[in-house]
């Protein structure tokens, strides 16, 4: 018992380590499950990196506790088994500090977007290293002064600043969360933040007691064993509970390991509960489309918009019409519902406006900057200038080719069929459009098949 408490290798130690390994595996499964099972596309930018860094930080944290507190028997001859690497660097800046900083970065983003209603002034990839600096400074200081004893414990004097740094970060996180507590989030962001705060606060409480007990009763060996078992256990629970993807990817949070139904919410519009989002209703009136009408008026008709969208997709110019569609959805949200408007606006900005976005639209630098530096994300005219520019672009570039394309022919035929109820006549369709007749690409995002499958569905629906 004596040797086990000092050198590691007690049965309780092995149990704790296996719990830690199990929790790490569950964390990795939880984070990669939506991407592997449901084949959701991987997000770009901070929405991808922050969860990855969190997983790495959790791993560092658990590993540091295992190595620093002598859970396993090791020979201490190599430098990388030195105490300072584990107890100081891996536990602080690369472990607990990093975990909390990720959460802080996310809470900061939420605060800026939902309370101040603008996009955050500092990007996450700069904010994160910035708030990690105190940890790095503290770790460097301790390493310099070499305060750890041979058993990797700090002296009583040094416990206080270390624990206060830990508590400080938790309280700052609490502060940000408190500032946004009145917002009605749609995707459990608040719940996850409170959860994280609760668990990390209780962990610090356990830690403090463990350290104090260790210091006061350095010679009581069973206390050492028990306290380090509890430490590792609570740390394992912390990393699992602390992790959540809802803040970074709201749509993804709809998928979880528990739910068994297939993913029905394909668009942000549907997730936010916008009426008639993404559906082509039966009762949409099939008006006769006059090519001389202004394009923006015609596009308000949902069937026409679908047909035009399919045409644009087939010649790789679809993003403009999709943007029109989503801004139209945004317009359906009432002005006095800022939270949902902010979700939708942020979604549109991430998908269409940011440079390098998946469906980046063709707008000028000024208009893009206007949107990205706006002081009010809920403003009803946020996207008006961009929309106008795009409608001009569509009018002068796509519309001409559309009228002579087979998509328009099909649309007219369909309209005639719907109002007359006749069987589909055999019609020779000439494709005069100069747009792409075929695209030889297997990973073409704008697949022509989309149109034909949608079209068949419409026919079946209309024949009932």
């Amino acid at each position: 018992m004596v040797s086990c408490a000092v050198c590691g290798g007690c049965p309780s130690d092995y149990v704790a380590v296996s719990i830690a390994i199990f929790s790490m595996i569950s964390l990795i499964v939880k984070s990669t499950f939506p991407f592997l099972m449901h084949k959701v596309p991987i997000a770009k930018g901070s929405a991808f990196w922050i969860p990855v860094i969190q997983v790495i930080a959790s791993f560092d944290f658990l590993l540091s506790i295992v190595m620093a507190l002598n859970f396993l028997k090791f020979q201490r001859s190599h430098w990388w088994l030195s105490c300072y690497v584990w107890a100081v660097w891996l536990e602080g800046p690369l472990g607990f500090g990093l975990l909390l900083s990720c959460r802080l970065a996310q809470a900061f983003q939420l605060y800026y977007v939902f309370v101040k209603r603008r996009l955050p002034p500092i990007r996450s990839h700069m904010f994160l290293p910035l708030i990690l600096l105190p940890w790095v400074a503290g770790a460097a200081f301790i390493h310099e002064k070499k305060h750890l004893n041979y058993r990797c414990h700090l002296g009583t004097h040094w416990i206080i600043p270390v624990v206060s740094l830990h508590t400080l970060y938790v309280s700052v996180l609490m502060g940000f969360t408190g500032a946004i507590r009145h917002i009605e989030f749609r995707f459990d962001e608040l719940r996850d933040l409170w959860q994280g705060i609760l668990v990390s606060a209780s962990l610090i409480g356990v830690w403090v007691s463990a350290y104090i007990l260790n210091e006061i009763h350095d010679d009581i060996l069973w206390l050492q064993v028990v306290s380090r078992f509890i430490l590792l256990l609570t740390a394992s629970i912390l990393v699992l509970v602390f992790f959540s993807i809802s803040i970074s990817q709201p749509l993804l949070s709809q998928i979880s390991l528990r739910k068994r139904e297939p993913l029905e919410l394909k668009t942000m519009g549907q997730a936010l509960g916008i009426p008639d989002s993404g559906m082509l209703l039966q009762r949409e009136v099939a008006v006769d489309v006059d090519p001389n009408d202004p394009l923006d008026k015609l596009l308000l008709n949902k069937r026409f918009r679908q047909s035009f969208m399919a045409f644009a997709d087939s010649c790789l110019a679809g993003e403009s019409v999709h943007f029109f569609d989503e801004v139209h959805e945004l317009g359906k949200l009432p002005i006095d519902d800022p939270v949902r408007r902010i979700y939708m606006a942020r979604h549109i900005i991430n998908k269409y406006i940011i440079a390098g976005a998946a469906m980046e639209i063709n707008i000028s630098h000024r208009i893009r900057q206007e949107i990205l530096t706006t002081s009010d994300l809920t403003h009803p005219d946020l996207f008006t200038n961009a929309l106008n520019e795009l409608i001009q672009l569509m009018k002068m570039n796509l519309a001409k080719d559309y009228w002579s394309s087979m998509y328009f022919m099909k649309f007219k035929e369909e309209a005639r069929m719907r109002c007359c109820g006749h069987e589909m006549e055999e019609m020779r369709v000439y494709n005069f459009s100069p747009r792409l007749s075929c695209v030889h690409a297997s990973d073409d995002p704008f697949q022509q098949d989309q149109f034909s499958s949608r079209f068949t569905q419409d026919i079946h629906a209309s024949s009932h």
Partner: protein
Amino acid sequence: MGLLCSKNHRYTEADAEENAQATEIERRIEQESKAEKHIQKLLLLGAGESGKSTIFKQIKLLFQTGFDEEELKSYISVIHANIYQTIKILYDGSKEFAQNEVDSSKYVLSSENKVIGEKLSEIGSGLDCPSLNRELAQEIETLWKDSAIQETYARGNELQVPDCTHYFMENLQRLSDANYIPTKEDVLYARVRTTGVVEIQFSPVGENKKSGEVYRLFDVGGQRNERRKWIHLFEGVTAVIFCATISEYDQTLFEDEQRNRMVETKQLFDWVLKQPCFEKTSFMLFLNKFDIFETKVLKVPLNVCEWFKDYQPVSTGKQEIEHAYEFVKKKFEELYFQSTAPDRVDRVFKIYRTNALDQKLVKKTFKLVDESLRRRNLFEAGLL
């Protein structure tokens, strides 16, 4: 049992007809795929506003049936929109300069012109521009002749002023006529950003002769967001016609006003050259907008662009223009050889000086391109 029986089944008449049909379909498919193989794929690539769509229009004019009256009339709204947009850009620009510049007095308009300017700016930002009539044309002309606007135009490289400005402003009377039908030149000057991909198929010897090459030409958008779509066209390309505007060395991008256009073109050309699909593709570099380059290079030195910062002017007048042009050409050649791996050096690379608005020049240039590609085809087939 049933299968065995069907094997010994005699051919009935229906079967024979089916077989005949099947072979006919197969023959047609084979013919078409052989024809497909002979179609040579040409891509027009380049940064935004480099003249790709203008070359595209020229090819349509030269080798297809050209523009009929219907199509010419369809450009009226485009030309009018260009005029409104341009005057709006100039007016807003003059306001901006008047606010921010030290010697702002030269950018301040007279009060009547300010009223006109506000009105035109309002029209220009709306969705449905009214058709250009005499009255509006008169107002635009008045505003255009204001010295503040002319000063702003002199600094047009800091704003996104299109290259067709001068041409349209000088022809306002004709363009605002009630029975105006655009000329071919007007259509070539009209500026529309291309989005997505457009293609035409043509044969350079004309419709009536049979044994010419068949080309399929693809035009694309040049702005950054459009470039992610290019990758879908990169398979099996015979030749890339890369358009680079040599007169834009002092301008910034439409989609990123922090970035110099020439530097962007340089990077883009480098990227295109390194594409794995283009290992055997011929590259035709069109150094475009030479007419604008001629006038600009005497006023604005080449070394305002960081790629050309080692340029030393030697003389003046025509000699200087030629010297500057040779310098730019050499830069592009250097870039080509830097970006081309040793195993690709035998692909065809030609540089042409073009002015996409000049029909004769484009026809001549294209004939040279065609010759070059034909020679290469024969070489590949082992006949040369």
